[in-house]
């Protein structure tokens, strides 16, 4: 499966969620599909997207929060699996797009290319709803089930190591994204 197709398949739900993505191609693909004020692109600090998603999910339990993580990123912050498992906010869905590669910096293989099982590690960390999916229908089903279950989930989506983004810098400056996202979170509280 291709990552952008997978994102597109759940995009109607992402539009209604608070979304934190990792840097680079994932951020570009989300913006290409359509930027929204409820999308935040963490364009550096590799590994911390899941920590930031956890901070939002714990602060605003009424909001659905989705983290779009990657294999290279979560491998840099494996402790985050244990912290998410400890607090397992029911409003958090943690998606890891696993292309078994550090694609944007030359395509060198990550440890998942030689057998490291991120869903297995998530389960062992204590995230009970942790699955690996390989097709779009499986991915959509796992996403829908996670949302319906009202239980924190990690979904590892195996995707092809291909890049469709022509560039990683977009016309959305980092701070514009940051302040727009914060303002959106404030406004949806005020209109409750």
């Amino acid at each position, binding site marked *: 499966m291709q990552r952008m197709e997978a994102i597109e398949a759940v995009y109607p739900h992402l539009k209604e969620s608070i979304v934190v993505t990792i840097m680079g191609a994932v951020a570009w693909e989300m913006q290409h599909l359509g930027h929204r004020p409820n999308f935040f692109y963490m364009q550096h*600090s590799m590994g911390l997207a899941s*920590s*930031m998603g*956890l*901070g*939002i999910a714990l602060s605003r339990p009424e909001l659905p929060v989705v983290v779009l993580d990657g294999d290279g990123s979560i491998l840099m912050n494996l402790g985050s699996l244990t912290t998410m498992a400890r607090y397992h906010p029911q409003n958090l869905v943690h998606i890891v797009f696993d292309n078994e590669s550090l694609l944007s910096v030359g395509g060198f293989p990550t440890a998942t290319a030689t057998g490291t099982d991120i869903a297995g590690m998530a389960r062992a960390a204590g995230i009970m709803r942790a699955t690996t999916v390989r097709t779009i229908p499986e991915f959509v089903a796992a996403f829908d089930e996670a949302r319906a279950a009202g239980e924190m989930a990690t979904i590892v989506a195996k995707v092809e190591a291909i890049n469709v983004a022509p560039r990683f810098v977009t016309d959305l400056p980092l*701070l514009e994204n940051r302040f727009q996202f914060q303002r959106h979170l404030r406004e949806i509280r005020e209109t409750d």
Partner: protein
Amino acid sequence: MPVSMKNSQLIYDALKACDVRMMSALPETWLVHLIRLADDDPDVTLVRLAKEEEGVGISAGAHMAGVKSAMMCQNHGFLQSINGIVTLAHLYKIPLLMLISYRGEMGERDPWQTQGGAVTEVLLRDLGIPYERLDSPDHVASRIRKAQALAESALKPVALLLCRDLMWEE
């Protein structure tokens, strides 16, 4: 364990007075009372970390979501968090209130703390992080209040160093 309960309570009350409602922490000896106070407080969400840098992400998320937070760690935990501080808190202008236990200063008996103690203030200065020492109960409340105010207005990391004279009773 001669960690000052009285001064830990002072620090905790000052954080509460600033409306801090989320605290992330990785245990270290001088922080034991602060962590227990947070754990026992139904109005505060304590996030126990596996590694300190996660706390930068937690605080960034809390800030975006409208919740004031603080991160409590040892100075070696601050060293561990530097990439997150630079590439998230600085880059994205996140108010990050850090309470850092300042090990390895004058009076330190543990040899393993001394190297981190020697570089803590140098790195805070080089990173452009405003900081103050908390070494007497007289200024705890005012310095915490002012540090929190600056973090929020400047939208940047601000540090308070929890010093031996405040935290350790012997």
